[in-house]
């Protein structure tokens, strides 16, 4: 393995329960998380992302497989011996301690000198802009402030990896946006590897260096936000992140022959043959006049106004439904009428062949 890897998960399996009723929360997961990167585990609830995080933190041990930190096997180490800290979904701040005592807790448990604890705590308070709150009890803080205490507490011992378990889910939208920027800033300033768990695709896309998309205990795709969004490898990823039109067809020379009979260009046809599914993002679908050469004939079945966008529902000649997301014009209704015959085109490179 390379020197740039902070955390390496090798074939991790976590099963809960016994025998036939056993549930595999993690099913043979392997992933390398690089030093200093903001890595996000994204997936619906129950996909195993939190279990994977808990394995790295040491709150659970895998049924089989290994966890390596900086190349050292830590699979069986208890959480208090791992240089890894967690920001909990519920924050789990100590209610009997002040803000400063909460932040200093990790250093105190490590037996660092008092002067060092005080200095680091002061730095951390400044970093999360909570200086004036140092002597308050955590129950006297707002949700956003508690969140920042939880972050400072986890960062204070300078862990090699910071684990964040859906830390923004309890905040309201505006605060969540602010904290997204704040988190990214903290990650850049501290240079610590962040592993962030969320079910919110927007959070994942805006903050991450790389995303691992999970479902049913497996990692389905790992890549940059742009990779994941523009080149989803399978139907799950394409539908979980953003919206997609799914079209069935068969691979031919020059592209994919859709079920409606038209041939379209598509990425990812190499090495593929026979029946495939094609994914196209709604914002990559363009409307044009009926009869335009090379465009697919379609009929408008409905449209919905969303403010900045208008979603236009179309039916291809064989009835396949396609949604086009069009920018709403400044005035008027863009000439969309139910039943109107039009044609549509996919933006170059927008159609992606999915794996199984």
């Amino acid at each position: 393995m390379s020197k740039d890897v902070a955390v390496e998960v090798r074939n991790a399996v976590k099963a809960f329960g016994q025998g036939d009723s056993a549930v595999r929360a993690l099913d043979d997961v392997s992933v390398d998380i690089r030093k200093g990167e903001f890595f996000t585990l994204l997936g619906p609830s129950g996909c195993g992302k939190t279990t994977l995080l808990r394995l790295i933190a040491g709150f659970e041990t895998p049924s089989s497989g290994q966890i390596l930190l900086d190349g050292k096997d830590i699979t069986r180490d208890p959480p208090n011996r791992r240089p890894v800290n967690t920001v909990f979904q519920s924050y789990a701040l100590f209610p009997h301690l002040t803000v400063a005592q909460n932040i200093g807790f990790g250093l105190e448990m490590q037996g660092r000198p008092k002067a060092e604890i005080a200095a680091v705590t002061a730095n951390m308070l400044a970093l999360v802009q909570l200086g004036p709150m140092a002597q308050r009890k955590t129950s006297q803080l707002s949700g956003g402030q508690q969140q920042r205490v939880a972050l400072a507490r986890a960062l204070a011992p300078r862990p090699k990896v910071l684990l964040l378990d859906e830390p923004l889910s309890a905040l309201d939208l505006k605060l969540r946006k602010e904290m997204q920027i704040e988190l990214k800033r903290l990650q850049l300033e501290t240079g610590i590897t962040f592993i962030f768990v969320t079910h919110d695709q927007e959070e994942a896309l805006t903050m991450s260096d790389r995303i691992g998309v999970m479902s049913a205990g497996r990692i389905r795709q790992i890549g940059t936000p742009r990779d994941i969004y523009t080149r989803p490898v399978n139907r799950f990823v394409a539908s979980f992140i953003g919206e997609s039109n799914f079209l069935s067809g068969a691979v031919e020379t020059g592209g994919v022959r859709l079920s409606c009979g038209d041939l379209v260009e598509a990425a990812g046809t190499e090495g593929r043959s026979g029946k495939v599914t094609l994914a196209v993002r709604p914002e990559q679908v363009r409307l044009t006049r009926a009869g335009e050469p090379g465009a697919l004939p379609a009929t408008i079945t409905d449209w919905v106004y969303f403010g900045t966008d208008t979603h236009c529902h179309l039916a291809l000649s064989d009835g396949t439904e396609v949604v086009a997301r069009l920018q709403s014009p400044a005035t008027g209704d863009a000439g969309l009428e139910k039943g109107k015959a039009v044609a549509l085109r996919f933006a170059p490179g927008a159609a992606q062949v999915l794996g199984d």
Partner: protein
Amino acid sequence: MAERAFSATRLPGFAMIAVAVFLVLYLPIFTLVIFSFNDANSVAIWGGFSLRWYQIAWANDAVKEAAVRSLIIATSAALIATTVATMAALGTTRRAAFKGQTLIYVIINQPLMVPEIVTAVALLIFFGFIKVTTGYQGLGYLIAAHSAFCVPFAYLPIRARLEGMDLSLETAAADLYATPWQTFRKVTLPILLPGIIAGAMLAFVISLDDVVITEFVKSGGQDTLPTYMLGQIRRAVTPDVNAISTALLVLTVLLLTAFFLLTRRRD
């Protein structure tokens, strides 16, 4: 007119019943307290205000000895019962649900269900057997018996406090390099403390008040305050019993008020 939500306070006769209940509950106690300040020799006829029964009770060595004995037993029993109850509460709540949990709850709370007189007779026989074999006659029997029946009373407030305590607090402490012992010392125990104190106070009051089991278990010359009073009343009802009762009442009310304040406070 709009329907209003059901409220017991609007049922006919609510105020009357409430007043009657309070009278039945508290009138005898008020009478006791008032007559403890009675100057007359009779417990039933008012003869002016006086503290003489308090002085008489205070001057009585048997009362003082019984009081000290009661306090020794109640303090020891409260300490032992609270320690056991804390361990039991930690064992039953700081983990995922496990098989046989209900059975353990039942066993812990058993002293609340078994009739006290049954426990008393059982202990009389059991301790009698030990006394014969070992020859030991001391207060240990009473302390052991009181500790046993105080456990569920100490357990309930501690368990309630633990159940309101996020399990992730201990996980967070472990994540922040605390060993299991440090986690207990620095996180679990300080947060749990109000529950432990409340449990200890409840156990103390329950022990202080016990008659039935004490009466069966005690050896000669081991009267506690309640059994001493019972013995006195068998002979003649004297007003100094009123004074002792009032003193016990004040102590109990103080402890229960402290218990209430501690359990109500949330941080």
